[in-house]
């Protein structure tokens, strides 16, 4: 199999969401002495980019995108040790968390999976995350994006508190995207969030757009 054919097969496995074949093609690519960064960029992320495009075009919906993300995750279990060994850095780093007072984590977990699928390194702060913890995570290392989730209207104001704290405490606060069942674009605009995603797949698209803009 030629290098191009291996990478194309890998892309197709991701696009079709084949979580058996995706890791197998990563193995084949590694056996073929392809470097980990090329496999990541030209195989996995290129495949996920097509998935993102199909989602934007309305050909794919969340279930399709999530199946692809699962295949991506399966492939990454094989590729990650190689990326580490070859010291390949992620395109960007995102901090994700469910805000203070809120314990609902399924939406946030899906967002984390989709951000990884978009090439982000994800630092998951978990649930019930106070504003200080978001700020601390951004001080500890260079963070390109913060993603916050909330389930109830009672915990939504914590998003605003966290955004204010990032603006107050950090010289260059990263853009914040927000989401969760009761959250709307209007609310995001009102509290000064850089973006809003109605689901995990749109969240990843918004994140990609914001980080591309920031260079």
């Amino acid at each position: 199999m030629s290098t191009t054919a291996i990478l194309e097969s890998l892309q197709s496995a991701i696009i079709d969401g084949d979580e058996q074949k995706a890791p197998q093609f990563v193995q084949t690519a590694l056996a073929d002495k392809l470097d980990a960064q090329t496999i990541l960029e030209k195989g996995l992320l290129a495949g996920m980019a097509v998935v993102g495009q199909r989602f934007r075009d309305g050909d794919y919906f969340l279930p399709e995108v999530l199946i692809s993300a699962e295949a991506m995750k399966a492939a990454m279990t094989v590729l990650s040790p190689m990326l580490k060994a070859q010291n390949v850095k992620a395109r960007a780093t995102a901090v994700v968390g469910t805000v203070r007072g809120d314990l609902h984590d399924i939406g946030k977990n899906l967002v984390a999976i989709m951000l990884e699928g978009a090439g982000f390194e994800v630092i998951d702060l978990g649930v019930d995350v106070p504003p200080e913890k978001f700020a601390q995570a951004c001080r500890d290392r260079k963070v390109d994006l913060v993603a916050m989730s909330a389930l109830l209207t009672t915990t939504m104001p914590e998003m605003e508190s966290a955004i204010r704290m990032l603006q107050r405490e950090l010289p260059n606060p990263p853009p914040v995207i927000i989401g969760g069942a009761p959250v709307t674009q209007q609310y995001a605009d009102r509290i000064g969030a850089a973006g809003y995603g109605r689901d995990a797949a749109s969240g990843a698209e918004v994140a990609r757009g914001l980080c591309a803009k920031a260079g």
Partner: protein
Amino acid sequence: MRLNTEWALEVGDSVLCRFDALPLDRDGVRRAIGLRPSTNNGARWEKAIDELEKPLRGLARGRALIRIEPVASLQSRRLTLAHGPVIEGAVGQFLAHSQLVALFIATIGSGVERLSRRWLRNGNVVRGLVADAIASELAESAAFLAQQAVRAWALSHQMDITPRYSPGYCGMSVRQQTVLFSELPARQIGVQLSASCLMTPVKSVSGIIGIAPASQVTPEDYPCGRCDHPNCMQRRVPFESRRGSCVDWSDCGVPPPPTHETEGD
């Protein structure tokens, strides 16, 4: 479904109901995931639903606490129970004609939720999301069975029930759950309410069901019966996009109550 007459509900008493077998609405699960007939790879999701339905129904612990109380007064935004507690919200419309109300908390416990979380963390997205959707539907079933138990009681007293009204839906703040939790021994079914009014286990539902003379209760006369919100869980209509919020009254088919304030403001 057969009405459940098994539970000895009594006015003024909290009654614990255990539901051994919770029915599962598979279409509800599909909707929650966002499956369409044309979903690419839809078979994988269907397979996961097939595989998980039985074990997860076995893992769910369906329980509810129900307490029926007489109403002292029912105004447009204020319901006063005979023994004193006050519930605020668009109660005048949602619980119209009620002479008694049943307060309830229903749950399926945390087993399914934990499993779903573990699968998601391990990258098993399909199983994780299917388990979450099944858990949400089973929680709805537990609430539905609680509602049926109240209905059985109401019918045996020549009355009927109004549609269910849950804090956090149109015109009633999630914070009103504090009243329900002060009236019901939630610990008996392992449910806790946080300061921000989130219940744990997460797959839990709380609410109020009105009980009124059967001749006065026509479901279509209640806001949810007239509303054309395309995707509200409280009314269980089919929804396409899983998006739905009746937090904003402008999205809802009923006029806002005079003093409605948006939470989070």
